[in-house]
C-alpha cells in the first residue's frame, strides 16, 4: 500500500492505525463522500479515528479540505492494492 500524507498531515504509519469506525463510500462521487464523512465524524468522540474507503480520485483532495474546515486532524491516505483509497481523519475539538 502506498502512503500519502498530504496537506500538513502527521507522519504516522497509517498501516498501523486501528480506526474506531470505518465508512465505505466506494462507488460514490462528489459530494456524497464528503457529506457522509462529515456526518460520520459527528458521531465520533474527540480523538477517535475514522477510516473512509473511497474510489473517487477527486476525494483525495476533498478529504484533507474537509478535515481542515471542520477542525479535525487529517492523518493521510493510503492507496489500497485493490484499487481504492483509505483515508484517515481524527476527530478534533469542536471549532
Amino acid at each position, binding site marked *: 500500500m502506498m502512503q500519502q500524507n498530504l496537506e500538513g498531515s502527521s507522519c504516522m504509519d497509517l498501516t498501523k492505525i486501528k480506526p474506531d469506525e470505518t465508512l465505505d463510500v466506494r462507488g460514490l462521487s*462528489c*459530494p456524497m463522500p*464528503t*457529506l457522509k464523512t*462529515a*456526518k460520520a*465524524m*459527528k458521531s465520533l468522540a474527540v480523538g477517535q479515528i475514522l477510516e473512509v474507503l473511497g474510489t*473517487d*480520485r*477527486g476525494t483525495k*483532495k*476533498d478529504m484533507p*479540505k*474537509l478535515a481542515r*474546515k*471542520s477542525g479535525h486532524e487529517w492523518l493521510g491516505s493510503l492507496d489500497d492494492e485493490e484499487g481504492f483509497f483509505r483515508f484517515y481523519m481524527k476527530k478534533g475539538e469542536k*471549532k
Partner: protein
Amino acid sequence: MQEVLNLPADRWDFNEFYSEKPDDTDRFLCKVLAAGAVAIYLDIITKSDIKPINRKTDKDDSADRVVHIFNLFLNICSDGNGKNPAEFDPFQYDQVLEGLNIDDNLRKAYSDRALKLFSAFKNKFRVRDCVDILGFDPFSYEDYDEETQEKIESGEWMQKCVECMQHIITTIKEEN
C-alpha cells in the same frame, strides 16, 4: 456527453474523469457545466485536422489529458480566480498541442459554443457555482444547524444536480 458528441471512447476516456476542486475558494463552478465546456473542446479538436507533435500514442489523448484541462478549467474559472468561463482558452492549456499554431477559427468555434452553453445555463438556473446550485457547502456540513443537516440528508439537492446534467446534455445535443 461522450455519446451525445460522438467522442470516440477509445480516444477520450470519460470513465476516468475526476475533479480536483480549487484550493483557494469554496465557490467553484458547477462541474457538469465545466465538463460540458471540455466536451465541446474535445469535439472541436476531434473533428479538426490538428496533428499534435507531442502526441506519441493514442493513450496521450486519454484520461490524464482530459482531467488536466478539466481541472484547470475549474481552477481558472471558479470564483477565487473569477475568469469568465467563456473566455477560458483550452487550446492554451492543452499540453499535447504545445508548440502548434492553432487556427483562430477553432478558438472562435469553442468560444462561441461555450458562451452559448454558459448563457443557457445561467438563464435557466440563474447561478453557476456548485454551492449555489446545491444550496449548501458540503465542506461546511458540521457548521449547519440540525434542521439544515436533516434537509441536506434528505437528498433533495440531488434533483438539482440531475436537472443540471440534463440541461447541459440537452443544450449540447440541440446545438450539435
